[in-house]
């Protein structure tokens, strides 16, 4: 973990309501692993005292990118970030996804901007796998091309049916699971809203597969100091409050104690 001065090299719209910010930040780009995140100081944000956390979406050579959704004050302020601007970011933060277990097939499940760390993960996994992407509507389904380029199978579901199948991403996941060779060894990597994480965790448990969930909690410091981001985790029989920013954001599904 370090403080970085990152120079913006590109900043474009990904789809309605989502943008991709690419920066040059060699030391960070070299070391960051899929599932880790950076804590960004957003410039020109009136009276703001907190940074904002974003998963790394891409890291290649000297460059690194985040894919973000416009949700509130901070992300809307980010729109004005221009090429050449120098941004302060802390990173890499968090544990990131573990290495894929060698015999297993990677199954990624993404909701909304949760696809960002998974696209990064796919780019670093040698094996080809399958990704399920869910969103409210077509414009919430991102990174499809990234996965296709890597030769991954992509399945899509949207609430309104404007892309892929109509319904929840777990519906198309269930369909796929139901026709699967039962001896196939799967490993799930999941990022998205809590409801989706829980739903995938249930399936993984039922079918006895490992599932890695990346959690999304409000953050203060991003480095483990403020305890704003804790999650109940059961490890070795002991329940404790671990910090999503430090011990997470990725936890094994069976460890998570849902409230």
């Amino acid at each position: 973990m370090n403080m970085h001065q990152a120079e913006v090299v590109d900043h474009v719209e990904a789809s309605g309501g989502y943008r991709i910010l690419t920066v040059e930040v060699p030391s960070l780009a070299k070391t960051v692993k899929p599932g880790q995140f950076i804590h960004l100081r957003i410039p020109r944000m009136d009276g703001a005292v907190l940074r904002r956390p974003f998963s790394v979406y891409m890291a290649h050579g000297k460059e690194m990118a985040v894919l973000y959704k416009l949700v509130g004050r901070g992300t809307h302020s980010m729109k004005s970030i221009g090429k050449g601007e120098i941004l302060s970011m802390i990173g890499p933060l968090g544990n990131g996804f573990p290495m894929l277990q060698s015999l297993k097939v990677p199954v990624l499940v993404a909701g909304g901007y949760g696809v960002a760390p998974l696209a990064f993960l796919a780019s670093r996994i040698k094996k080809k796998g399958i990704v399920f992407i869910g969103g409210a509507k077509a414009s919430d389904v991102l990174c499809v091309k990234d996965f296709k380029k890597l030769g991954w199978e992509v399945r899509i579901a949207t609430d309104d049916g404007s892309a892929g199948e109509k319904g929840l991403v777990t519906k198309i996941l269930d369909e796929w699971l139901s026709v699967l060779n039962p001896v196939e060894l799967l490993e799930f990597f999941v990022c998205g809203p809590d409801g989706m994480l829980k739903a995938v965790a249930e399936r993984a448990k039922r079918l006895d597969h490992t599932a890695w969930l990346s959690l999304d909690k409000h953050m203060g410091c991003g480095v483990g100091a403020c305890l704003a981001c804790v999650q109940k985790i059961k490890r070795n029989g002991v329940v404790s409050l671990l910090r999503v920013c430090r011990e997470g954001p990725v936890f094994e599904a069976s460890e998570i104690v849902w409230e």
Partner: protein
Amino acid sequence: MTRSKKWPEMGVTIAGIKMKNAVMVASGTFGYGPEYADLVDLNKLGAIVVKGISLNPWNGNNLPRLVEVPGGLVNAIGLQNPGAEKFIKEYMPFLRKYDLPVIVNIWGRSVEEYVEVAERFDSVKGVSALELNISCPNIKHGGIAFGTDPRMAKKVISSVRKRTRLPLIPKLSPNVSNVSMFARIAEDCGADAVSLINSLPAMVINVETRKPVLANVVGGLTGPAIHPVAVKMVWETANAVKIPVIGMGGINNAREALEFIIAGATAVAVGTANFTDPLTSLHVINGIEEYLKRHALNSIKELIGTVHT
């Protein structure tokens, strides 16, 4: 430890603790040390005040625990901590590696708990002082904070005083009409210094859901928003007591820290700004040094409490 003589002299002594400069990091905003150690050279800080510790582990409040507001944030972490034993075992060895005074912020839900946790630290190597957070609710007396009732403040400070040899620094609540009265109580009870201010009681409501944003309903406001309130309280307090005052509340830069010192604080602490920019404390230290040079002052001590009113 010998250091080459340096101009200007940045060091101060608080409650017998020699600090290489007047800038500490505030309790709850800097963890227990390791969290920011990759980013901040801990040897450069005047002191670290660790996150509040109680006798037994404590889970704190439900989430959300923190919300940003214009010019600050409102937090209701609820004093989550691993308890004294685990802190001593897991963090003190790390902290002892540094040339850094460690001030342990302690709290309890009864006078007895305060005394017990204080006693536990008395013989722990590397602990320079205890900061007594008296802003937390007293469970036995129906949730009234120790820090807003003069009799309860007196009781908890004097009880702890009797049972620890460590320097004692009560941390005063700003949620009172007359903070200097509480500082005088602390002084009378034998405190070695006082620190202020803690967060201001506050609340944020999500108007769309009509629910409080924080799970705990209310929380404490910190950050730039509270700076002028904190300066006023520190000024008032420094004029009322002889023991040193540690000033904090909304420090983002050297100028804001200097206001506290000129108002009468012997040292300052950087809190919320650590989240905004973890290097704030180092910038403040540099800025104070630059200011002393520019004003041809030999020592920061020449500045303390020199406001002309």
